[in-house]
């Protein structure tokens, strides 16, 4: 993996004076930036464990004097939006219901598109793909209004299939791009050999290409889980009252104002809402870099 000879690579011989300072500089740079990157997470965590009294008096960067998980319990079970006080629980379930099919379908479709685009000759496919890529630059807002009307016509407006379809549609450009580029890096002979072996479109896809797609699929899963879980706008518009995702509930809780803002509950709710993508990153961060390195982003 690592190129062996790096300018400052740890060599066996004792480091020179200059190199020691160099190492120190590297760690200083990384350390300071790590603090900068961790600051918001730190603030969110310490605040969520404080009581409101303490927040009112203390500084946001100080550690909680009296450690309490009340805010977390409240955020999860009883924070109110409107007349309902059910906390984030319901939204969590809804988000999972939306997330799973959306991730599976958008990745499968992205893989299929990428496969068809890079191994099969389909006239006009590249033009379609170019339009798709350009489309990914347009703010969602432009699409929402007409989509609402089309969905209304087809009767899937405000339903689980509706929101899943929406995520599949808006995930398609990046997913297709990822898989297309990854597949472009695979030897085309593999595909030819399989065709001579008599495998057809689907057989090649399922038996040969998909099993080889693990590295890029991990990247795709990470990106889609993050994007779909963090989505607010599409969930709000398309999911329907019964299926509103966690982010929408978070917004309702954070913006539900009763006198003083319950910063501790808000922070706990925010961290709770971010837990799933955070967990995905923590558990598979190394695969992310590796997956990208495996050719995911080759031109």
């Amino acid at each position, binding site marked *: 993996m690592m190129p062996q000879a790096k300018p400052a690579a740890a060599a066996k011989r004792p480091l020179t004076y200059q190199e020691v300072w160099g190492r120190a500089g590297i760690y200083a740079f990384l350390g300071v930036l790590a603090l900068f990157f961790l600051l918001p997470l730190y603030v969110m965590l310490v605040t969520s464990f404080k009581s409101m009294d303490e927040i009112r008096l203390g500084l946001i960067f100080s550690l909680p004097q009296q450690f309490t998980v009340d805010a977390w319990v409240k955020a999860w079970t009883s924070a109110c939006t409107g007349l309902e006080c059910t906390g984030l629980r319901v939204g969590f379930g809804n988000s999972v219901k939306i997330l799973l099919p959306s991730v599976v379908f958008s990745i499968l479709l992205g893989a299929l598109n990428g496969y068809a685009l890079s191994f099969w000759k389909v006239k006009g496919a590249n033009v379609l793909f*170019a339009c798709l890529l*350009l489309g990914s630059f347009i703010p969602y807002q432009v699409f929402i209004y*007409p989509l609402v009307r089309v969905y209304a016509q087809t009767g899937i407006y405000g339903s689980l299939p509706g929101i899943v379809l929406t995520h599949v549609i808006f995930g398609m450009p990046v997913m297709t791009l990822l898989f297309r580029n990854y597949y472009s890096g695979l030897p085309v002979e593999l595909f030819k050999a399989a065709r001579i072996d008599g495998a057809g479109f689907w057989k090649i896809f399922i038996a040969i290409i998909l099993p080889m797609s693990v590295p890029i699929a991990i990247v795709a899963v990470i990106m889609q889980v993050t994007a779909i879980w963090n989505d607010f706008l599409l969930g709000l518009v398309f999911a329907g009252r019964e299926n509103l995702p966690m982010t929408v509930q978070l917004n309702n809780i954070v913006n539900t104002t009763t006198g003083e803002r319950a910063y501790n509950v808000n922070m706990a709710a925010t961290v709770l809402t971010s837990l799933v993508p955070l967990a995905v990153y923590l558990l598979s961060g190394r695969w992310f870099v590796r997956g990208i390195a495996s050719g995911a982003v080759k031109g």
Partner: protein
Amino acid sequence: MGAEFTRHVRRNLVAYIALLPMAAVVIFAYLGTMAWSVRLSFSSSKLLPRNDFVGFAQYVTLFDTSRWLTSLGNLAVIAFFFLLICFVLGCLLAIFIDQNVRAESLFRTVFLYPYAMSFVVAGLIWQWILNPDLGIQATMRGFGFSGFVLDWVVNPRMVLYAVILATVWHGSGLVMALILAGLRGIDGEIWRATRIDGIPAWRVYLSIVLPMLRPMIITSLVLLSISIVKMYDVVVAMTNGGPGTASEVPAKFIMDNLFERANIGLATAASTVMLITVLLVMAPVIYSQYFRKSGRAA
């Protein structure tokens, strides 16, 4: 052409069928809605779409609206600094992490985790940290530095940089991951060769390594650009466009006019302008990066 085309389609029929969902999405969800938007931008639509035709009236109004012009200017500033800082910071992080540091995976995770958070969270939390009454300024003053000022979110001249700070925090980890992946893919012989030639490390990175990472760089710039054009949540969460209109962005202008202001005609005119801008800027990039050398003939 005719008969051969038929034969070609028949031989690749399944591939054509498999691409139908994508074709449907592109034609209906993307091109269709774009065409619809462009059409409405020539109408007088307010709350509901209307089918009349008013020529370029909405565009004239649009470019006579100071908030729109402010939004465009802000977007340019944000795009420039966000791309520049994210890119430089991401590259530096990747290069430094790639120096055989201890706890590499810890550093990597720390720099990448913000990307897992939503823009809304990024905006909210930085708004709080930068809030003069609560955050860093209050803390520093609490320590006795009574003259300490960090009022970016409330200062019209600095507020854009507060937004940039939050987005850089959110996005530079992605650049780091991409560049790091690229660095890991570079042949060790290159490093040996440059050592023999006695080229200083910074020079190697600048003149040899960066050019080799071109695909990674372009991909990260493309991903960052997508988030710039769509930049909305973070601004709404952090400043809601304020103070005044100092941090307004085009996506927010479109949203506000589409819904809050019930001015669909103006909103679609604005999105058409964005569409054309994106086309002009991104089409050549996308073409050269993803299509020009696509020489694969299956």
